[in-house]
């Protein structure tokens, strides 16, 4: 039970004026694993990360990183963490290389060491060509990569990624996911916050769902999906005349559940295992049904929250966290 916990938080409480950002949050992340912290805007994700990364002191509760207390041993915590988020960013007036070398110097890598590390990271993140340009000229994807590279300068054991892919297009998102997987393979422990169950499912070993500053669920991705319902298979037949035929095939694939027409000409059916997709493709082909769209969807954050709390995701978007920052 008492595995090697790298990130440990107990009863974290943080209030900003009358806003209760955290109301007793527990988190635990074993070494070499990824914890996905899932929640809507204003749930307290960012506040939790800011406390764990020593930027903010909790009002109550305690937290430690690699055994170092985030309040009393903040300096030691800072030696082992890397932080990437909407806030911890780079200097836009400096070039990519100047940024990385500056952080290298501040991490005591020495002049030559800082330069070598910058070169290494620029190459890894495919920024070598842009190394001499000011960060403010970077595209969104490049900027995100530089932010992440900046947090890896010190080769941290523990990496905090606060909504690392929000605003990225799907291809760039996949790239970012690959990076995270590589980091974990290299032995890093990652805490990742996200608004997408899909992202948490793709990367996390365990998922903690928080809402209004409280943990409302903690499970493996599989466990969570069992609770909130599995995936949905969505199919749009090319010929609207085949809707009925398609619906009956899909219903068979999903072992009897009726297919709903969720949008005009688009059918959806709940499926429980991953083979449903290949099976549907095979059966539709055999029946001579051509399709223009076919996709497997995980429940959205809204659906997750509806299942867990009985109401829609509290996307008040209060941005209280930003105010507090």
């Amino acid at each position, binding site marked *: 039970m008492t595995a090697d916990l790298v990130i440990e938080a107990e009863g974290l409480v943080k209030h900003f004026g009358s806003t209760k950002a955290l109301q007793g949050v527990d988190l635990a992340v074993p070494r070499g694993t990824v914890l996905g912290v899932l929640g809507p805007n204003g749930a307290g994700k960012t506040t939790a990360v800011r406390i764990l990364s020593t*930027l903010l002191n909790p009002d109550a509760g305690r937290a430690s990183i690699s055994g170092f207390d985030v309040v009393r041993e903040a300096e030691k915590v800072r030696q082992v963490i890397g932080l990437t988020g909407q*806030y911890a960013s780079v200097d836009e*007036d400096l070039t990519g290389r100047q940024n990385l070398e*500056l952080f290298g110097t501040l991490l005591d890598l020495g002049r030559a060491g800082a330069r070598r590390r910058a070169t290494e990271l620029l190459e890894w993140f495919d920024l070598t060509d842009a190394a001499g340009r000011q960060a403010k000229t970077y595209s969104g994807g490049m900027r995100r990569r530089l932010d992440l590279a*900046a947090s890896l300068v*010190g080769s941290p054991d523990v990496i905090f990624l606060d909504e690392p892919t929000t605003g990225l297009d799907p291809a760039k998102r996949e790239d970012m996911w690959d990076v995270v997987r590589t980091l974990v393979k*290299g032995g890093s422990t990652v805490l990742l916050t996200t608004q997408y169950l899909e992202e948490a499912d793709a990367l996390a070993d365990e998922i903690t769902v928080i809402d209004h500053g409280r943990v409302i669920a903690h499970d493996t991705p599989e466990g969570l999906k069992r609770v909130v319902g599995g995936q949905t298979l969505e199919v749009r037949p090319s010929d609207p005349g085949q809707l009925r035929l398609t619906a009956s095939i899909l219903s068979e694939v999903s072992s009897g559940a009726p297919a709903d027409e969720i949008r005009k000409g688009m059918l959806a059916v709940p499926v429980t295992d991953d083979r449903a997709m290949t099976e549907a493709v095979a059966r539709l082909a055999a029946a001579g049904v051509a399709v223009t769209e076919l996709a497997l969807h995980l429940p959205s954050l809204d659906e997750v929250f509806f299942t867990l709390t009985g109401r829609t995701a509290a996307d008040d978007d209060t941005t209280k966290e930003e105010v507090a920052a």
Partner: protein
Amino acid sequence: MTTTIGAPRTGNPVMPTTVTPNPRPFRLVRHSMALAKRSLIKTARTPEALIDVTLQPVLFLVIFVYIFGGAVAGSTHDYLQFLLPGILAQTIATGCIAIGVNLNTDLAKGIFDRFRSLPVPRSAPLLGAVLGDIVRYVIVTFSTLAIGYVMGFRITTDPLSAAAGCALAVLFALCLSWLPVYVSMKVRTPGAVQGLMFAVIMPLSFASNVFVGTATLPGWMQGFVEVNPLTHLVGAMRGLFLGTPLGNHAWWTLAWCAGFVVVFMPLALRAYRKKV
């Protein structure tokens, strides 16, 4: 542009064998210097940010010398000799405002959170910003003296005294800049820093010996003028550039410098820690 960044190309990027952080002595100094270099790079990249310390002294010198010189001092040359140290002091004092404005802007961005998540002494980012601005103050000193020289200003003492006068001006700016740094931690917008600092610097530079001899001022104002730090800085520079009686001006200036640092540096650092 398609990019694949999944596979590292140069060994394991997470645990590189090439570098290991090892704490070295004098971290505060080294980190402050690294952060000062950052300020310098930013200054070099945006030369237009130097307008306040290059164009302003030129404008003030030209306007005041040629418009008021005849009326105030009887000759433009005499007034130029009198006015230049004053304009230098005024420009260097207003030049300090920029650091507050810049810091206030910077704090709203993510870069300071990044600094705070690194094992960097808490005061290093502020020290670095203050030190990095030395270059601005050196530039203002030289550009003011240069334009003054073109207009006919001449230093009548020796090079050593002149150098001491310049050094005093730069030191004054460095120490005074803790005030705008402190203000920048306490107000919400860069515009507020600018407005507040102007409200402080303007009375200081006019209710002083910058533009006119203090003897012409009403008695009730003289009391203020005599303690005004700019009065002492200008008095000291006039002495060091032109050989006028130095009196205690240099000592008073140094005392004010020490005062600015002793009062506003701890306040600024404390506000910085609290702010974030």
